[in-house]
C-alpha cells in the first residue's frame, strides 16, 4: 500500500513511457536501415517507408494467431523487403553516383508506384493485424495492465538492436560498412565493388525495415499513410541522431518514441509541435556540430 502511494505521482505516465520505449525501439529498427543507406551508400532513399509497409502488409496477410504464422510472416516480410531493396539498388545502378537529386527522384518514383501496388494488392482499407494468441492478452506491470505483445516486442527489438551493434562492431561486413562511411573511395581501392556495397546496404536496409514492419505491425500498422509516417520518423531520427554512431541513432529513436507517447500525454496542447521543438533543442545543444560531423563522416 505504501509503495502504491509512493508511485502514484508517476503512475499515470508509466504506461505512456513504456509505450514510448516500444515505439522508440520500433523506430530505431526501421530508421537504422535509412541510416545505413544514407551513411554508407550516400543515398537518400525516399522509398524506405515503402520497405516498412511491405513488412506490415505481409504481417497483416499471413498472421493468423499462431506462432508458425509469425515465423513465416517474419521470413517472408524480411525476404520481400530485402528483395525490394536489391531491386532498388539495381534501378539506382545506372544513375550517376553522387547525383543526389536524381537518386531522390528515382526512389520517390519507386515509393509512389510501390505504394500504389500495395494498395492494389491488399485493398485500400487499413488491414487488421492478429498477434499470436499467447500474446494477445495483457500482463500486469506495476499495478497496470499492459499489452503483452508490446512487452515482448520491447525485448525482441532490444535483441535486434544488440545484434545489429555486434554485427557492425565485430563482423567483417560491419567493418566494411564503417570503412565505407569513413572513406568510400579507399574501400573501392581495396577491391570491394561500390555497386556490391550499395546492393548489400540496400538489402540490409530492406531486411531491417521489413523486420520492423512485420514485428511492429500491431504498433504502427499497415495502411495507406504508413510509408509516409515511417519515412518521416526515420528522417527525424537521422536529423536528431546524426550518422556518427549507432548510440546516437538509438537515443534519437527512443527520444522520438517518448515524445510521441509520453510527450503527448504530458502536454496534449503542444503535441503537434513537440517533434519540431526536439529538433530545435538538439540543434541548439550541438550548435554547428550537426553539419560538421556529417561533413566528416
Amino acid at each position, binding site marked *: 500500500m505504501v509503495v502504491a502511494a509512493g508511485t502514484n505521482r508517476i503512475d499515470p505516465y508509466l504506461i505512456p513511457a513504456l509505450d514510448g520505449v516500444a515505439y522508440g525501439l520500433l523506430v530505431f529498427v526501421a530508421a537504422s536501415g535509412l541510416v545505413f543507406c*544514407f551513411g554508407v551508400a*550516400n543515398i*537518400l532513399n*525516399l522509398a524506405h517507408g515503402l520497405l516498412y509497409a511491405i513488412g506490415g502488409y505481409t504481417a497483416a496477410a499471413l498472421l493468423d494467431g499462431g506462432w508458425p504464422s509469425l515465423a513465416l510472416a517474419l521470413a517472408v516480410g524480411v525476404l520481400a523487403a530485402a528483395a525490394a531493396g536489391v531491386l532498388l539498388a539495381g*534501378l539506382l545502378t*545506372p*544513375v*550517376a*553516383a*553522387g*547525383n*543526389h*537529386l*536524381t537518386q*531522390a*527522384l*528515382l526512389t*520517390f*518514383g*519507386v*515509393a*509512389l*508506384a*510501390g*505504394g*500504389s*501496388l500495395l494498395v*492494389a494488392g491488399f485493398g485500400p482499407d487499413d488491414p487488421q493485424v492478429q498477434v499470436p494468441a499467447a500474446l494477445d492478452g495483457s500482463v500486469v506491470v506495476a499495478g497496470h495492465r499492459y499489452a503483452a505483445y508490446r512487452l515482448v516486442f520491447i525485448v525482441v527489438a532490444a535483441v535486434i538492436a544488440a545484434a545489429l551493434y555486434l554485427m557492425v562492431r565485430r563482423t567483417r561486413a560491419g567493418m566494411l560498412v564503417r570503412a565505407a562511411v569513413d572513406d*568510400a*573511395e579507399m574501400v573501392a581501392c581495396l577491391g570491394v565493388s561500390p555497386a556490391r556495397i550499395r546492393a548489400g546496404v540496400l538489402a540490409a536496409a530492406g531486411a531491417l525495415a521489413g523486420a520492423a514492419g512485420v514485428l511492429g505491425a500491431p504498433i504502427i500498422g499497415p495502411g495507406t499513410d504508413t510509408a*509516409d509516417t515511417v*519515412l*518521416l520518423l526515420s*528522417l*527525424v531520427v*537521422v*536529423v536528431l541522431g546524426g550518422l556518427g554512431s549507432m548510440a546516437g541513432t538509438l537515443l534519437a529513436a527512443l527520444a522520438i518514441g517518448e515524445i510521441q507517447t509520453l510527450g503527448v500525454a504530458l502536454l496534449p496542447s503542444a*503535441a*503537434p*509541435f513537440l*517533434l*519540431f521543438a526536439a*529538433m530545435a533543442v538538439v*540543434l541548439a545543444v550541438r550548435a*554547428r556540430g*550537426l*553539419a560538421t560531423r*556529417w*561533413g566528416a563522416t
Partner: protein
Amino acid sequence: MRDEVIRRGRGAVGALVLAGLVVAPWVVDDYTAAILARTLALALVGVSVALLTGVAGMPTLGQTAPYAAGAYACAVLGSQISDVGVVQLAVAAVAGAVLAALTVPLVVPARGVIVLMITLAIGELVVTVLGRWRSVTGGTDGLAGIAPVRPFWGLPVLATDQARYLYTLIVVATLVGAVLLLLRTRAGLLLRAGRDDETRLRASGHRVPLQLSGAHVAAGAIAGAAGSLLVVAQQYISPADFGFDTSALLLLGVVIGGTASVGGALVGAALVIAVRDWLFGVLPGHAPLVLGALFVATVYLLPTGVNRARGRLRPPSAPASQPDPPPARDHATVPELRA
C-alpha cells in the same frame, strides 16, 4: 550566332506562352481555368525551388512548408485583416519568410543531400502540424468557405474563375519578373558564385552563409505568396495540398526545366502538375503507379541523370582509367548541380 538564334527563339516562345496564358480564360471552361490558376500557384512554388536548388545550390524538398504557412496565414489571419488581395499576399509572404527564417539554422549549415533530407523533414513536420492543430487549421478536413478577395482597394470582388485566374496570372508574372530582375543584380551573381565555388568566394571575403540565408528567406516569401494564390484559386485548403508528393513533383519539374533556370522551372513545374492532374482524371485508381513509373522513366531520360551521358561528355583524349570526380559530400559544395 547560334546563341543569338536560341535567345531570340526562347524570347519568342516565352511571349507566345504568355499570350496563350492571357487569352486562356476566354477559351477554356471554368473548371479548366480554376485548375490553371492552381497550377500557376504551384509553378510559382517551383520558381522558389529553382531559386534554392539551382541558383543557390541548396536542393530542397521542403518548399511546401513556407507554401503551407503562407496559405494558412492567408486563410486564417489575412481574411480577418482585410479582403484586399494585395494585403493577404503580403501577409502570406511574411508568414512564408518567417517560417523560412526560423528554419535557416537547420538548413543553411548543411550542403548537398543533407539539405534534401532536412528540408524534407521540415516539410513533412509542417504537414503533420497542420493535420493535428485542429483549433486553428481545421485538421485534416482543412478550411473551406474562405471569403473571396478583391485584388486592390476599390476593385470588385473576384467572383468568377476567370477573374481569379487572371489575378493569379498577374501576380505570378509580377513576382517572376521581380525574381528575374533580382537575379541579374550583384546579389544574383554572388549567389551563383557561391554555388559554383564556395571556398573561393569565402576566401575573397564574402559571407556565403548570409547570402544563403537571404536566398532561403526570399524563397520562403515567394512560396508563401504562392500559398495566398492557392487560397484565392481554390477557396479551400487542406494538408493534402502540401504533401510530400507535391514537393517531389515540384523538384522533378525543376530538374526537367534545367535546375537553375527560372523560366524552365515555371514550365517544368506546370507541366508535371498538369500531367498529374490529367492522370488522376483519366486513371482514378492507378494514377500513382503511372506517375511513379513516369518519375523513374524521366530520371533515366534526363541528360544529367545517367552515367552514360557523363561518358559521352568526357573528352575522348582522356585516359580510360581516369578516376571519377570525388562524390559531393567530400566538399562543402554540390558539384552534381554543375553537371
